[in-house]
């Protein structure tokens, strides 16, 4: 770790540059060579691996670039790692070597543009991670979202996906506008763009209008993470997009949003609730939002009959769990772990869903899964493992994720008021979550009836992807230190103003 000299721009941005170049190459080749379906995914894989390697080098120089725009921290390093690794898994899940004909109406097809957009989106995620001022943050967030608008619209050849894309785009543009306005007001009040400078300003000054930008920023970011009250789009968008795109939506904007909120909350100093008035106000707003998000997400999911809508609203609920960890402030490692685990399990489920063909399109209704357990036991077993992970059953990674998030709440050193009440709300919601997740399993294993659709099981990379997702879920459930002991260092990062460490041996008592 070289702290003496600041890293140069190239060192910090190298993985992002690789991703952007790779994305452009993929776009170009998909225009030039339409026939071969393997080149895009392969190129994407190569790009992701190269970016991963570059990221390792970038982590050797922690610090902020001289002009203060970007900087590498342990947080950015790990966000990049997780983003790239999940991206690799995503490439596997979306890779259909034999593909469909593009002309046939209603057929699902994944083209070169998909992979290019995915690479752009991941580049945006990395940019959010390394950002050190508000402009770069905004740029990164937009870079994450814009390609997803395109991906949703193009993903299926049916009207539903166009409708979903349009809804997503308009609401997303609105949220981006709110976010930009919030950033602008923040700059106007504090006169600074960089996180450290804003934090310093906030320590010593205050302003009666200070609540406004923070509320706007949180509102805009809540759209990204699909939290209340900006969660309304998820149902239609997840349903309208094809499964690999939904899987990407469940991960990319969310983690970008969470990292952004982490940056924003870090500006309040070590203790969100300690800062008088403002911190208290923002903190309580977020507390209520977290509780409501979990509850509303779970309630809405209970009413769905479409698997993808169930996943959509359950993603709202999972956002709620992670929001409680955000309140704690120093639980960044818990959030990263939970996010990684959630992404992998979601990828597994959407991967299985994308393999089932119904009338040239995807099978989406819960009842369509009837008989899967008897017809394709391997796939159904993978589905079961991923679903149990999302419920939070022990011996899967999902349990560890929930354990870490809820432990962060219980920790005496946390500043969250009424944390026990939030904990109980979270626990009860976890139990409610089991209800609708079990419906997926009920449909696949318990319902009588034969499986009516075909499963496209010649797609080796997708099978590999699903298998990998399942194995990692179980592995992380039994040996979480593989990932967690490494992420833990994020909280110790010196660059982040947050000094409270989750598992610091504090001697404070109630």
């Amino acid at each position, binding site marked *: 770790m070289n702290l003496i000299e600041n890293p140069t721009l190239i060192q910090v941005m190298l993985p992002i540059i690789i991703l952007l170049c790779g994305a452009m190459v993929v776009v170009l080749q998909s225009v030039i060579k339409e026939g071969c379906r393997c080149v895009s995914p392969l190129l994407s894989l190569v790009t992701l691996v190269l970016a991963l390697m570059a990221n390792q080098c970038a982590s050797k120089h922690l610090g902020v670039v001289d002009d203060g725009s970007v900087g590498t921290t342990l947080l950015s390093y790990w966000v990049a790692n997780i983003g790239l690794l999940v991206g690799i898994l995503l490439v596997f899940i979306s890779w259909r070597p034999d593909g469909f004909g593009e002309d046939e109406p209603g057929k699902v097809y994944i083209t070169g543009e998909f992979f290019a957009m995915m690479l752009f989106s991941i580049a945006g995620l990395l940019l959010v991670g390394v950002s050190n001022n508000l402009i770069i943050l905004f740029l990164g967030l937009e870079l994450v979202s814009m390609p997803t608008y395109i991906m949703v619209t193009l993903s299926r050849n049916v009207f539903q996906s166009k409708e979903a894309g349009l809804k997503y785009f308009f609401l997303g543009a609105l949220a981006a506008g709110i976010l930009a306005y919030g950033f602008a007001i923040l700059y106007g009040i504090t006169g600074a763009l960089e996180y450290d400078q804003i934090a310093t300003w906030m320590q010593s000054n205050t302003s009666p209008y200070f609540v406004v930008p923070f509320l706007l920023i949180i509102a805009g970011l809540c759209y990204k993470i699909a939290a209340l009250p900006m969660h309304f789009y998820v149902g239609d968008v997840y349903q309208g997009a094809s499964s690999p795109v939904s899987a990407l939506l469940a991960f990319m904007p969310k983690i970008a949003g969470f990292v952004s909120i982490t940056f924003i909350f870090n500006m309040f100093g070590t203790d969100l609730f300690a800062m008088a008035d403002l911190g208290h106000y923002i903190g309580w707003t977020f507390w209520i939002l977290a509780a409501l998000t979990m509850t509303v997400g779970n309630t809405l999911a209970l009413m769905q009959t479409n698997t993808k809508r169930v996943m959509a609203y359950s993603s709202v609920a999972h956002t709620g769990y992670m929001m409680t960890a955000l309140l704690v402030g120093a639980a960044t490692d818990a959030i990263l772990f939970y996010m990684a685990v959630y992404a992998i399990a979601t990828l597994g489920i959407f991967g299985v869903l994308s393999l089932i063909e119904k009338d040239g399109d995807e099978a989406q209704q819960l009842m369509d899964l009837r008989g899967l357990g008897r017809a394709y036991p391997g796939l159904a077993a993978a589905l079961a493992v991923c679903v149990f992970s999302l419920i939070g*059953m022990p011996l899967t990674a999902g349990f560890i994720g929930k354990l870490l998030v809820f432990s962060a709440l219980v920790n005496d050193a946390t500043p969250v008021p009424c944390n026990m009440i939030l*904990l109980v709300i979270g626990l009860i919601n976890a139990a409610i979550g089991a*209800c609708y997740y079990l419906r997926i399993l009920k449909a696949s294993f318990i319902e009588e009836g034969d499986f009516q659709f075909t499963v496209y099981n010649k797609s080796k990379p997708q099978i590999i992807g699903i298998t990998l997702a399942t194995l990692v879920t179980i592995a992380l459930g039994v040996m979480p230190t593989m990932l967690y002991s490494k992420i833990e260092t994020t909280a110790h990062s010196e660059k982040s103003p947050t000094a409270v460490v989750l*598992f610091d*041996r504090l001697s404070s*008592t109630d």
Partner: protein
Amino acid sequence: MALLISTATFGLSLVMLKQFIANGVTSDFDKALTYTISFLPQIGSSFTLGIDGISLWLVLLTNLLTPLAIWQSFSSIKIQPRTYYGLMLLMQMGMTGVFLSTDLLWFYMFFEFTLVPLFLVVGIWGGANKIQAAFKLFIYTMAGGVLTFGGLLFIVWTHASQTGGALTFDIQTLYATDFGLGNTQIWVFLALFAGFAVKVPLFPFHTWLPLAHTEAPTAGSVILAGVLLKLGTYGFLRIVLPILPEASDQLAPLIAMLSLVGLVYGALAAWVQPDIKKLVAYSSVSHLGVCMLGLFTFNSEGLSGSLLYMINHGISTGALFLIIGMVYDRYHTRAFSELGGLAKKMPIMAFFMIFFSMSSVGLPGLNGFISEFVIFVATFNSTVLGPWYALIAVSGVILSAIYMLYLCQHMIFGPFKAPEVVHHEGDDVLPEDLSPREWGILLPLAILVLALGIYPKIYFSTTNAAIDQLNTTIIVKRDAIQEAIKKSEATPVVLNRNITEIK
């Protein structure tokens, strides 16, 4: 194949028993038999297994019942057998893990994990109402379980803040957690109570049980009644009582009342069931009321009797479900109205049925009597409960005799009545009476029933040390807290017992 693995596990557990006895029956977790791998050191949890006198018999019970249940399934599970046996083995792993864990997190993990194979077993191979049964048991148990999880986390963090931040999930270490003199203990107790009480099941949280027992396949019912219910009582014994003795002391009368209500209610409900399996299911509710009563007597006879009761109930109710399963395999009905006088055609089955019914009732000479008697004496002598509780509990014996004899009378004696057996293609043709495999399954259980009934020393000698130590821990801690409460008269503390004693 699964039978081999399962039996091998049982063999291993017998080896463990020998090793345990050979090392001298100590009260601590036998150091030579512990096994630790680091799991999640950041939060102080490690994968630690250990055995002491209390866990020993429960592990043996688990590893005895599962191979027998698997063996019995050979004749009743026709669809997707490999998945089924895989799930049964997973369940065995989960249950053994619960009893062997000395780390609180792993205890909870195995505790919840058993729900996964249970849900699938009941849901896929169950009876007519299997979906509702599977959902209800999963959601109900998990809902309680997550509250327990919250309570466990709170215990660990309270302990950590008292020991200067050293996080540990080790159960023995957590015994020393001090919750202060206020109502925190009560809240934590209620949180833990939520999960364990649903599992036991304690009235009024028992509604999932009759449904689950009835709709589960035979082996599922055997495992459920035989072992899974003991997870709840074991949780009370191992975790709730030692860590929260004062709250247990205060709430003991309440819990004893609930147990007694469950005892009487379960017995009366069992008496009127038209379905044999549901009758035995309600009898489980009733019997475990006695078990819970024993746990809250706060003397070591109570704890010892309660543990023995767990074992006995596992054996006898497990055997009863096995027999009912064997009858079902032949006649495909469980209704009283359709079965009767089976002794004429199935004398061996009749013999075993009466034998295990008597064991369940508590006939002297069989195992049930020993455990019930010890619990009654303990309740009578208890400082927390008292003679009145014992009185009501003893009446439960009469009630259990009523419904058990009712069951035997209608099912075994009387005019012969059975539905026409329609042989489908591919069915095993079962002999009229029990085949050698079937009474081979029941024989080990019968031997154990007799052995524990006539020579209970084999149980008491191995468990007394551990029980005494546990009891001492509980009583000492409780007395210490009560002393501290008395000393803090200046600060008003809202504890009912305290106020009467200060006066």
